[in-house]
């Protein structure tokens, strides 16, 4: 069943060949079977999911408001609010935090009749790139248990890759959906900033954060995206424009201009990844796209610019965890300052590192030289990309510089992450939508390619990648080769 596409599951549910309860029970069994080792879930909603599935079955039987997702299980990253369901952000501070309302994306899933199957693991407060800074332990890559699943939405990517959920939601501040999607061989979309409501998403760096879908195919991804996207008056940065969610994924892509920015194919990129992404470009060329080589010089400064701005915003976002309103409170201090300081002692080291760096870069000594300069580089990058979109319709790049790295090799890990961030953060800095999709494997490890486009082009990105996936001969669909045993891979 985990190898069935969503449209096949939908047909089976609608024809009553399969019930939503049976489908949910199947995925709950997969979780029970595999998650002890993979650790993709912080909370499994066994009872709640079966109840929601039973409600979906009643809805299907009565033919009332049946949508593409009615009765379909969805895993939710644990930094997205779920009313009455523990939302930990993978932090000890929020270990017993139960939100009193749903995030808008969760409300929309519930309205569509989807089944919430569990809350997935992440780096604490989404601050990390390997799902290793979680209070609830490391999430492991299903293709090789000794390698990183990526992060911070590693739990969501693993849930889909290992067939523990057909769909999942993640959040992407600097690549946190796309990088784990690439490492785990699934599809992941960071929507245009403002396209999906952030209401109920625990903020890390609010000017970059976006909620987005993860799935096993472009068609499945689009269905989830269509369900969660759209204007929300509760999010002041929500885009008011009407959505262009043209769902015709079989429409021709002939005549589209696909840009290949040379800064994404230079030093440090794994030769195998380069080969596979360029092979994907050739497939698009054969489908009638025009391939355009171009340069985006600002990208060389994307990673430090992103880090500075994200740390600055993180230091402000985290100020709310002072022991007053959210989560646990440490000891009885002599006043608010002492209470806040003592409570925040419970944060993990990586979160503390980012708060301290943000505090430093926002200090009077650094503001002009660093913070304002970072804002200028960001503005330069926005112009640089806007100029590129006059020469091409979208950009094709690798998602990561190397396949999933092995735990324990810190030097390699740091190098791989630094390069990887360079490829993903540009879309967060510019607010553009970006999609990671599988484009083959190296030594059995998945490789991801990335499409980036101008604001509002999510459906186009999915369409182009789907044309590639459906015409590719190697490894386009991870669902065909879901790893069962986690064989150890050398290299």
């Amino acid at each position, binding site marked *: 069943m985990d190898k069935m596409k969503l449209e096949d599951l939908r047909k089976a549910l609608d024809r009553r060949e399969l019930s939503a309860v049976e489908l949910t029970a199947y995925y709950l069994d997969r979780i029970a079977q595999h998650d002890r080792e993979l650790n993709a879930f912080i909370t499994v909603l066994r009872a709640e999911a079966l109840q929601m599935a039973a409600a979906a079955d009643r809805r299907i039987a009565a033919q009332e408001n049946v949508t593409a997702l009615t009765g379909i299980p969805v895993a939710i990253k644990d930094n997205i609010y779920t009313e009455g369901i523990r939302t930990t952000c993978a932090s000890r501070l929020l270990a017993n935090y139960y939100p009193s309302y749903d995030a808008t994306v969760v409300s929309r899933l519930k309205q569509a009749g989807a089944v919430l199957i569990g809350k997935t693991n992440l780096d604490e407060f989404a601050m990390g790139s390997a799902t290793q800074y979680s209070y609830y332990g490391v999430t492991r890559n299903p293709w090789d248990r000794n390698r990183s699943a990526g992060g911070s939405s590693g739990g969501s990517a693993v849930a889909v890759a290992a067939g523990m959920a057909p769909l999942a939601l993640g959040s992407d501040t600097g690549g946190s959906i796309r990088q784990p999607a690439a490492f785990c061989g699934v599809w992941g979309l960071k929507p245009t*900033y*403002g396209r999906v409501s952030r209401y109920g998403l625990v903020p890390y760096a609010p*000017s970059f954060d976006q909620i987005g879908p993860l799935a096993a195919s472009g068609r499945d991804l689009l269905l989830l995206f269509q369900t969660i996207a759209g204007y929300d008056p509760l999010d*002041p*940065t*929500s*885009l*008011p424009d009407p959505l262009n969610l043209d769902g015709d994924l079989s429409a021709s892509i002939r005549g589209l201009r696909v840009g290949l920015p040379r800064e994404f194919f230079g030093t440090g990129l794994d030769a195998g990844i380069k080969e596979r992404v360029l092979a994907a470009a050739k497939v698009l060329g054969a489908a009638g796209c025009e391939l355009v080589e171009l340069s985006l*010089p*600002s990208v*060389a*400064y994307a*990673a*430090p*610019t992103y*880090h*500075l701005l994200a*740390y600055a915003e993180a*230091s402000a976002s985290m*100020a709310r965890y*002072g022991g007053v309103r959210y989560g646990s409170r440490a000891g009885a201090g002599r006043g608010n*300052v002492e209470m*806040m*300081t*003592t*409570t*925040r*002692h419970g*944060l993990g*080291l990586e979160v*503390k*590192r980012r*708060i*301290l*760096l943000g*505090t*430093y*870069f926002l200090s009077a000594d650094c503001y002009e*030289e*660093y913070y*304002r*300069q*970072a*804002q*200028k*580089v*960001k*503005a*330069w990058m*926005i*112009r640089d990309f*806007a100029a590129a979109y006059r020469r091409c319709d979208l950009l094709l790049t690798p998602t990561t510089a190397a396949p999933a790295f092995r735990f324990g090799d810190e030097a390699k890990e740091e190098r791989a992450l*630094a390069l990887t961030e360079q490829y993903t953060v540009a879309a967060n*800095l*510019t*607010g553009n939508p970006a999609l990671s999709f599988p484009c083959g494997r190296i030594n059995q490890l998945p490789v991801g390619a990335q499409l980036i486009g101008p604001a509002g082009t999510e459906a186009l990105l999915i369409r182009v990648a789907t044309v590639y996936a459906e015409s590719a001969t190697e490894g386009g669909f991870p669902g065909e080769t879901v790893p069962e045993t986690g064989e150890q891979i050398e290299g």
Partner: protein
Amino acid sequence: MVLTKEQVRALAASARLGVSEEELAVLTPAINRACQAIARIREAPVPEGIPDLFPDVPAHPGREDEGRPS
């Protein structure tokens, strides 16, 4: 720029962040490594005429604020 352990301790105090001595020993070099990597942005050859805080091509086109009863 190199921050000393005492400067990181002062930063933690201004951020209202409790850190232990062991954490300070790990955080100080980690913060210095990050600062070193970030310092590169000072060399970015930003073209003339690029604004800083309010770029003319908005990345984040938020709507106008509207007064609403709470």
